[in-house]
């Protein structure tokens, strides 16, 4: 070792020993030069010793553990801090096999195992050095137990917080989806559906929700909603008047075309300028000053419906990926409902077209039939000349059949008008007792023909009330003929009365009855219960359906109580007063 070069750090032991093991001071020299050299040497040695002591005390006092390991990983030196860290006296530490200190990078974490104490987490750093002239490793060990524990606690806290936030967000999402599903599922009307969708969005996550629906040609139909009390909601009108043309390079049009949702966590001036470059003459869009936006496409299957734009205008509410996935899920559900609504509308329109067709055909059939009945009557009266008894009989037969046909057609027309929403309520004074007697007169021959007892109970002096007499009569006729049709022995009883605020019409029979599970079906059109007499009973199977629809039109309801083999009782309850036909007539006045 050259004494002229500065001693490397941690070679103090070697340094300290060099003078003893190396050239020991020779006999005193007598020359000036040698004296001078000797004293110089002593000065140097003293300086070196002082330097060594300085180093030693520095290392000794270091708060970090310092250990020197030889080439085999054995401890050659340990400072006071290392004694504390390892829980061992220096004498016990020196000579122990620590192992080759493997460190990747600057430092590595290890656990020290002081006997009888909890492990100490430590940072280990290693530097190459020499010891007794041999390559050695200087190991610096710093206790980081508290730091690690604090980190661990912090991590736990963060994890806990994140878990709580996630759980809250999750339950909020589930709640929102549930609410949205219920709200959306409750309607099949497209406009209503979109309105509700927008409402759910502004209630839960957005300040403004704009829905653009593809109208096949032309601009998209636009519907906008804002949070209640939202200060800029007046601007929405301008927004609704700014339609999106799909050909344009607007963000909405892009989302619609690609079907990929877009999240703009932070809406910048530049973004707004770019987004509204092509069409925002009125500045409606930017005047809402959105801070964060999401645009999600509405599609079911391959069919694209539209785009929903959700805006937050609150700088502290920025949308993130979880909001985006929530919105996507919401739109997916909404799209399903939209599709259902569309299918329902298509089906409804088809059904209405059929009803209209039915009404027209029936009307066309009735006109010539009226002529047949009329002229048959004239012939029967002898206006066309004297008739033989046989001719009379034949003509009577013709007239009866024609009248039967007319009744059937009337039923179909009524049914078609009801189905097509064309039936109107024609309110006038009705004498309930008289009405019941008239119906009885009309239907008694049918009962007589089947040898059924037929009785009528009417209230005394019930007086007149306001309703649609023709419709009441049709309800009663349908119920009575239905009862007679399905009763083979026993009796049919018709009772009408006014109970409190209701008109109650009741038709009781001792017929074959209706199995409980079939009850919901009997008011469906074209339905005759599945029994051996199916379709043998004649009629179109729409009598009870008409009863139901007429009753509803008059603001009432119809029910049935029945026991198979014992008979059935049909009861119609119609409200008197404000809930009655008058109210109903206003509702249908648009027809």
């Amino acid at each position, binding site marked *: 070792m050259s004494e002229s070069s500065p001693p490397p750090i941690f070679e103090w032991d070697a340094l300290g020993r060099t003078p003893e093991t190396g050239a020991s001071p020779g006999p005193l020299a007598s020359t000036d030069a040698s004296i001078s050299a000797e004293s110089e040497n002593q000065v140097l040695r003293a300086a070196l010793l002082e330097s060594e002591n300085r180093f030693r005390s520095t290392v000794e006092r270091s708060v970090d553990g310092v250990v020197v390991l030889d080439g*085999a*990983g054995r401890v050659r030196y340990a400072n006071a801090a290392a004694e504390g860290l*390892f829980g061992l006296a220096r004498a016990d530490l020196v000579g*122990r*096999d*620590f*192992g*080759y*200190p*493997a*460190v*990747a*990078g600057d430092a*590595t*974490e*290890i*656990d*020290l*195992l002081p*006997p009888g104490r909890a*492990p100490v*987490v*430590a940072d*280990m750093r*290693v530097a190459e050095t020499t010891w007794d002239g041999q390559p050695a490793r200087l190991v610096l060990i710093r206790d980081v137990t508290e730091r690690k524990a604090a980190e661990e606690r912090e991590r736990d806290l963060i994890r806990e917080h994140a878990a709580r936030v996630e759980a809250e967000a999750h339950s909020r999402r589930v709640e929102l989806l549930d609410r949205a599903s219920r709200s959306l599922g409750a309607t099949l009307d497209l406009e209503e559906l979109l309105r509700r969708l927008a409402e759910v969005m502004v209630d839960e996550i957005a300040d403004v929700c704009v829905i653009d629906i593809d109208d096949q040609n032309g601009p998209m139909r636009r519907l906008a909603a804002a949070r209640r009390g939202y200060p800029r909601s007046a601007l929405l009108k301008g927004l609704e008047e700014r339609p999106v043309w799909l050909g344009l390079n607007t963000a909405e049009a892009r989302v619609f075309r690609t079907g990929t949702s877009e999240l703009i966590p932070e809406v910048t001036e530049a973004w707004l300028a770019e987004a509204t470059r092509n069409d925002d003459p009125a500045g409606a869009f930017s005047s809402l000053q959105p801070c964060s936006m999401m645009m999600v496409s509405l599609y079911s299957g391959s069919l694209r419906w539209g785009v929903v734009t959700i805006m937050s205008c609150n700088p502290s509410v920025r949308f993130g990926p979880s909001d985006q996935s929530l919105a996507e899920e919401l739109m997916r559900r909404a799209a399903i409902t939209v599709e259902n609504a569309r299918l329902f509308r298509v089906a409804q329109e088809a059904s209405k077209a059929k009803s209209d067709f039915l009404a027209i055909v029936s009307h066309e059939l009735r006109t010539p039939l009226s002529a047949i009945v009329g002229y048959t009557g004239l012939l029967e009266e002898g206006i066309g000349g004297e008739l033989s008894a046989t001719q009379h009989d034949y003509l009577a037969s013709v007239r009866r059949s024609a009248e039967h046909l007319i009744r059937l057609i009337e039923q179909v027309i009524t049914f078609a008008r009801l189905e097509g929403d064309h039936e109107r309520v024609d309110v006038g004074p009705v004498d309930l007792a008289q009405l019941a007697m008239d119906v009885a007169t009309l239907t008694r021959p049918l009962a007589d023909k089947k040898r059924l007892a037929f009785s009528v109970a009417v209230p005394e002096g019930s007086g007149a009330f306001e309703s649609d007499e023709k419709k009441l009569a049709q309800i009663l006729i349908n119920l009575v003929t239905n009862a007679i049709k399905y009763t083979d022995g026993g009796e049919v009883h018709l009772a009408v009365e006014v109970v409190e605020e209701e008109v109650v019409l009741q038709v009781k029979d001792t017929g074959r009855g209706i199995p409980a599970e079939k009850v919901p079906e009997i008011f469906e059109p074209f339905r005759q219960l599945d029994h051996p007499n199916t379709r043998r009973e004649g009629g179109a199977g729409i009598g009870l359906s008409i009863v139901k629809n007429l009753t509803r039109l008059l603001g009432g309801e119809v029910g049935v109580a029945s026991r198979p083999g014992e008979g059935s009782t049909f009861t119609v309850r119609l409200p008197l007063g404000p809930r009655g036909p008058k109210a109903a007539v206003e509702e249908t006045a648009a027809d």
Partner: protein
Amino acid sequence: MPATTEDRTDAVATTRFTLYVAGDSARSQRAIRNIRQIVDSGLSGPCHLDIVDVLESPEQAERERILATPTLLRDFPPPRRRVTGDLSNRDQVLGFIAPELRPNTSEPREGPRRLGSQFG
């Protein structure tokens, strides 16, 4: 963590290692992962690895006079040597503890020696 034993082969000249870790900390997991990678990377001779959790088996750590963990010990063949600290550098670890196991090629070797390599 229970002590686990892995036998790479039944051959006589098996090199036996024991990895000492303290508990189930991230340090322990990282060490176990690293040593698994070393063992699985293909060594030129058979080896056997035990893993000992010093918190569960302190007497074993005391017997071996383990000062710190993670420490990997070569139990057999002699001389007994150990590596303490980061075991991520395969060449560094093997170079010190079992240079004879370092295959000539750095390519991981596949073969029957991988059989039975299961960690708990």
